[in-house]
């Protein structure tokens, strides 16, 4: 869970002059790259462990890598039954003819050794056609961290093949939902990006909504109805300590961190009017950013912290606006048919993702931060609240289904989609789920 130490970098190929394989992710990929992920070879000298089946660890790590690749829609992990070469030999020197015979264009090999309660993992990425090694890396960590190792390896390979930052070694915080629609029980939950390692952070005694990470993923800000007083809270994930943010005489909601993590920006509702405020977490200084008789909510900073996008009905219905971070220079940027909500600024700074409602249908879309170039990615009965993957290539959001007369058939699930509009898929959760928020990369 703590730090992962990169003790040894065997060889990192920075030479892009070769025309090695590349995956273009800027458009929908209808021809995913065939990749063979050989099971990692488990060194025979490895110690036995109580909780982990060491002999199976090589297979487990490679299947986590495979499922990460499969989830991107950009790669096609090949069936292991067709692999001819043994993992240990392939890792030393692949027989490229064998791998190209099963149409693999990229090959991942590796080996692991467990000694003195340390897990040492090595992996290599090979270009099969060019018969060349593209990446080779080794890590040492505690054995219980093996899933994170698999995610980090996935990130390194994704980065080498696409030229983009990875997003597999990340978590998603969300609201777990159980019970009937009229009396939903909601708990904060956190999981790995692939839906594994779920932990519940609150007990469900009070309603909780809209959790969001700080930039270092140690703190979460969210709305809690503790003692029937809806207020923005701050939670330290490691210690479990929670505190109210600020001392407001009414409901505070829609919180997010500033990109430097020093402030929380949120709405405060008073006498039927919601405005946007910030609070500095160190000095506790509260600043009013918007002052308008309309509803101003769902604020989100640009990654450089200079601008804020937000949702306001000052023109009559919900629309998206941007302003300078001090509240000056307010500009409406959404002008299409329908109403717009939940703007959230891309970590790359170029795009704003949003929810749009038109003719009774809900859309997740993106537009440039000046409002041009609107693209709707997905349409459904009800979906909202997009959150960006740390590399700005995907959005995670939640979708609710239509319910019958007694609330039957109602579900809330997490979904993700590429900003190309391709690769829409559900993220499996133990319970119903909503309000997802994606962390930054855990290992930078």
């Amino acid at each position, binding site marked *: 869970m703590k730090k992962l130490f990169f003790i040894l970098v065997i060889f990192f190929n920075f030479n892009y002059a070769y025309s090695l394989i590349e995956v273009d992710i800027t458009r929908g990929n209808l021809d995913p790259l065939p990749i063979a992920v050989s099971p990692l070879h488990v060194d025979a000298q490895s110690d036995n462990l109580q909780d982990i089946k060491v002999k199976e660890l090589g297979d487990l790590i490679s299947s986590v890598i495979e499922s990460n690749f499969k989830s991107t829609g950009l790669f096609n992990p090949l069936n292991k039954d067709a692999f001819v070469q043994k993992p240990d030999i392939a890792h030393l020197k692949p027989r490229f003819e064998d791998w190209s015979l099963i149409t693999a264009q990229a090959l991942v090999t590796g080996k692991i050794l467990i000694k003195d309660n340390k897990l040492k993992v090595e992996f290599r990425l090979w270009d099969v056609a060019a018969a060349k090694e593209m990446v080779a890396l080794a890590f040492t960590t505690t054995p219980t961290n093996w899933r994170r190792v698999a995610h980090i390896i996935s990130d390194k390979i994704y980065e080498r093949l696409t030229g983009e930052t990875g997003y597999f070694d990340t978590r998603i915080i969300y609201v777990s939902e159980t019970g*009937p*629609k*009229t*009396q*939903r029980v909601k708990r904060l939950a956190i999981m790995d990006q692939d839906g594994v390692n779920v932990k519940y952070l609150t007990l469900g005694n009070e*309603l909780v*909504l*809209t959790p969001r990470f700080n930039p270092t993923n140690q703190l979460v800000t969210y*709305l809690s109805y503790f003692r*029937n007083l*809806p207020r923005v809270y701050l939670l330290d994930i490691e210690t479990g300590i929670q505190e109210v943010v600020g001392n407001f005489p*009414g*409901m505070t*909601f*829609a919180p997010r961190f500033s990109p430097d993590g020093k402030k929380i920006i949120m*709405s405060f*509702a008073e*006498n*039927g*009017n*919601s405005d946007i405020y910030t609070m500095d977490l160190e000095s506790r200084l509260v600043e009013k950013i918007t002052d308008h*008789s309309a*509803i101003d*909510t*769902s604020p989100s900073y640009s990654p450089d912290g200079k601008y804020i996008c937000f*949702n306001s*009905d000052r023109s009559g*219905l*919900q629309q998206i606006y941007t302003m300078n971070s001090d509240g000056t220079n307010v500009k409406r940027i959404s002008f299409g048919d329908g*109403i717009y*909500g*939940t703007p959230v600024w891309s970590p790359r700074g170029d795009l704003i993702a949003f*929810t749009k*409602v038109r003719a*009774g249908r809900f859309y997740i879309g993106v537009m440039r931060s000046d409002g041009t170039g609107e693209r709707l990615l997905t349409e459904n*009965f*009800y979906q*909202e*609240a997009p959150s960006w993957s740390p590399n700005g290539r995907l959005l995670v959001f939640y979708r*609710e289904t*239509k*319910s*019958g*007369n*007694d*609330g039957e058939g*109602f579900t809330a699930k997490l979904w993700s989609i590429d900003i190309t509009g391709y690769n829409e898929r559900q993220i499996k959760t133990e319970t119903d789920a*909503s*309000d997802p928020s994606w962390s930054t990369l855990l290992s930078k």
Partner: protein
Amino acid sequence: MKFNTKIRNLLIILFSTLALSACSTAKKASTVGTTGDVYTGTDTVEYLAPGVKDRVFFATNSSSLTTASRDTLRKQADYLRKNKDMNVVLEGHADERGTREYNLALGERRANAARDYLMTYGISGKRISVISYGKERPVNSASTPLAWSQNRRAVTVKAK
């Protein structure tokens, strides 16, 4: 603030005329249970006392009080004037057809519209607290226009 109440008053006048004109045509079709998309039936309604309904309903994306809503609130104000020790909580709600955060703000605005009206009929603001549940606590869990109209509400609840 002044500007704000002015707009609100203007809206109240505007919507009451609209609602009145709508009422005259809607009477024939009263079985539908809504006027425009404001719920006018009594399913889901509870009573603070005989004849005193506990809730008022709203049109989509609106926090304007209809003629019927103002009538209900005047009865609530009468009742509260007679029960001087009683404090109330105004719970504002939205339907499931909006984004969560905006709905929280909208619920708060609806609850305050009802609170303001009670205050103009002499009930001290100190006796009325407000809470918004946004779309979190629907009373009817169906995904139908009728259910949504029943869920867009401000409910006056006796404070414990």
